[in-house]
């Protein structure tokens, strides 16, 4: 099993519903966020093109945050989900320094925090909160090891990119182009 997420940049309108849903579902403290929207503008006027991306932890298959963690607080759960065990985390911030996506932050209570792919919902067979609320259905969550899953089929059909694959982390968030 390999959980992943595909994000359709053609459908995303940048409404930030995913951000708010995550903050509500996971009780993310005010001023912090586990996912966020990036707006990219490329080109020179008048030939501009814009891309909207909902970004979060990439749950990398070769996660540098897991490698550099001195206490195994950052670890890989079933399905490749990268999690932080709060009671093992000493707050050394090595994982924050090692994440090329800047997806982690220090929770006001002291431990490192980030997107969990809403593992508590996924275990119940539900979609992560961000996916569940997206009004344009631009977020697709699923198992890329299963060739018949929606995400596997859409990744076969559509062109996609990963963010900075050259950082060598083997990320599992796909942006449909």
């Amino acid at each position, binding site marked *: 099993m390999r959980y992943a997420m595909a994000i359709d940049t053609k459908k995303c309108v940048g409404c930030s519903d995913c951000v708010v849903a995550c903050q509500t579902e996971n009780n993310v403290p005010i001023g*912090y966020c586990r996912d966020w929207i990036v707006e990219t503008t490329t080109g020179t006027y008048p030939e501009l093109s814009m891309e909207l991306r909902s970004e979060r932890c990439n749950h990398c298959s070769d996660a540098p945050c897991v490698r550099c963690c001195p206490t195994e607080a950052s670890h890989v759960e079933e399905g490749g989900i990268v999690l932080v065990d709060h009671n093992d985390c*000493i707050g050394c*911030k090595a994982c924050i320094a090692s994440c090329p996506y800047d997806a982690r*932050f*220090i929770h006001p209570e002291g431990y490192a925090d980030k997107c969990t792919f809403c593992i508590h919902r996924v275990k119940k067979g539900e979609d992560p909160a961000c996916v569940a609320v997206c009004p344009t259905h631009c977020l697709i969550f699923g198992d890329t090891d299963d060739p018949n899953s929606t995400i596997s089929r859409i990744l076969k059909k559509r062109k996609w990119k990963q963010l900075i694959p050259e950082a060598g982390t083997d990320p599992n968030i796909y942006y449909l182009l």
Partner: protein
Amino acid sequence: MIEELITSGRNLPDIDPRLQVWGWEIPFYLYIGGLVAGILFFSALFTLRNREKDYPTAVKWLPMAAPVLLVLGLGALFLDLSHKLYFWQLYTHLRWESPMSWGAWTLLAITPLSILWAFSWLQDIFLTWQWPYQWLNIFFQWIRKNRNSLAWALIILALILGMYTGILLSAFNARPFWNSAILGPLFLTSGLSTGVAATLLFSRSHKERKLFASIDLILIGIEIFLIIHLFMGFLAGTRVHILAARLFLGGPYTAVFWVFIMGFGLIIPGILEILELRHKPIPGYIPAFLVLLGGYLLRVIIVDAGQASRWLY
């Protein structure tokens, strides 16, 4: 032209607009770690060569400061942790992939050994020194008899400590300016050099000053060589590595690095030490002080510049 904006109002403390997770504590600790590695390395080395009478400052006196410095460094590390009460989790795990983990275990070994090492010299410095309990007297007699074994352990641990302070940074994929294995040997050399400079600062023996000034000169030469190779490696790397190197080659760190670290921290003390070795009237504490200050600035700048360099955006 590409312009990227986070439009959902993300403004995570210490991450946006640039990473700033490590303030003064980490460079201070890396500096202290290197300095202690240098002090213990040369103390143990010259003990093994039976030169404690020739080089008393390096062999007997400076090790007294090592445990105190280590405790200060560990204190800084502790202050840096944001989940402080869980620090003991470091010692319920041993992770080979994480330099921070084996650094923590190295510190657990070298700190008590440095205390034993320092105390073992008390009876050599103060000839009438007696421990208040007989068992302590017996214990330290035994330590003194086995001093060479302790010296070997300290040499190995000091080299690991000095090296790991640099490898710690190179292990972080996401910060291009730290992605160089040269940081390990560079921090080790710099640490040994600050240890030598500490000897030069306090030594009153001409013979000792002469030898340590020569050693420092070699170490300064190696450091300059390693710094040049660090930048050669970056400039032959990918775009993000070239951009990281440019932080120092025209970017915001150019003046502070080339003037204060390369100039006042390496080249000028090197020249002063050459003049001192040629019996010119140079006050010996000036090059020693400059090397100590340069070593500290090197760590401050490298820790800061690493956090300013990134892959994304």
